[in-house]
């Protein structure tokens, strides 16, 4: 059992209901025509692969089918918090969100 909090269903659900989609917070460049091929290629294909804190997009595939953001640790698998697309979340230098991030989840509503 590994429970993930869906900010749209506002409940913790079994991980089987979710899929990871990739790195979160990738705004589309406002003026693609002004970019070099290299910049455009970086935007399309290059992703961070950190060891430690990371922000990812996940989807509640077997539930409400909404995409949301996850702040988690790729080394320990700890999830600091989940929050809706369009929201931001500042964990600071030292995330104190607790093992499931549920305290932060409650705060972000």
């Amino acid at each position, binding site marked *: 059992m590994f429970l993930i909090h869906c900010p*749209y*269903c*506002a409940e913790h*659900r*079994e991980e089987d209901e979710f899929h990871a989609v990739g790195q979160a917070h990738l705004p589309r460049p406002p003026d693609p025509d002004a970019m070099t091929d290299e910049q455009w290629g970086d935007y399309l294909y290059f992703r961070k692969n950190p060891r430690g804190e990371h922000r990812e997009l996940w989807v509640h595939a*077997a*539930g*409400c*089918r909404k995409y949301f953001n996850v702040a988690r640790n790729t080394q320990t698998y700890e999830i600091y918090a989940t929050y809706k697309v369009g929201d931001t979340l500042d964990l600071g230098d030292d995330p104190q969100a607790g093992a499931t991030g549920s305290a932060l989840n409650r705060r972000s509503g």
Partner: protein
Amino acid sequence: MSNKQADVAVMDQYLRADTAPAMERPRTALAHVAPAVRHASESGAGDDGNPARHTADGALSLEEKPVTGLLTLRAGAHRESLATALSATLGLVLPERLSSESAGNEVCVRWMSPDEWLLSCPLQDAFDLECRLRSAIDGHIAIVNVSGGYSILNLSGSAAQNVLKKSTAYDVHPDNFMPGKVVNTLMAKAQVVLRCVESDRYEIIVRRSFADYLWLWLQRAGREHDLR
């Protein structure tokens, strides 16, 4: 308005009662289960010939509902318009997160997602209801008749909760899963819409291609309670 209805009719899979040719009741996803069981056991079929299994002591009952009208309602920015149409047409409020609203035993609207709801009604009413909703709606809203795509199972009795516990990771304890609550979740790896209708009575809506698999799973899960 009449134009609007004509447009809908082309896309709709069930015609209105007054225009439809006399047709047999559509076969449910599990229609093949009932006859096979009538041979094996006297009490295999439900009152309507739909597949059903019961325990002798009444502690557990599993049956498939006859084909039911199902409408998927989607509304984002114009959700207020859908709410108004729903209350004008059926006297129902648009359900909030993880909840459902019912009118009698036959009509129920379930929350599926922040911008999606699932409405069930008697099959013969689905087309008229769709038309009435469309004429009452003013805005960017989608209504799709998905009646043919699903099978609806009813699981009830004092042992029903135990069978659910073996089948889904969702917390079905009455403290968490109370009457009226609806969740989209996995049951034996199949995606379902699970609703607590009332205490010890649950409704499972599953894609019809998964219905046979889930039926066999639940039948097996009920074996410890002598479901037959």
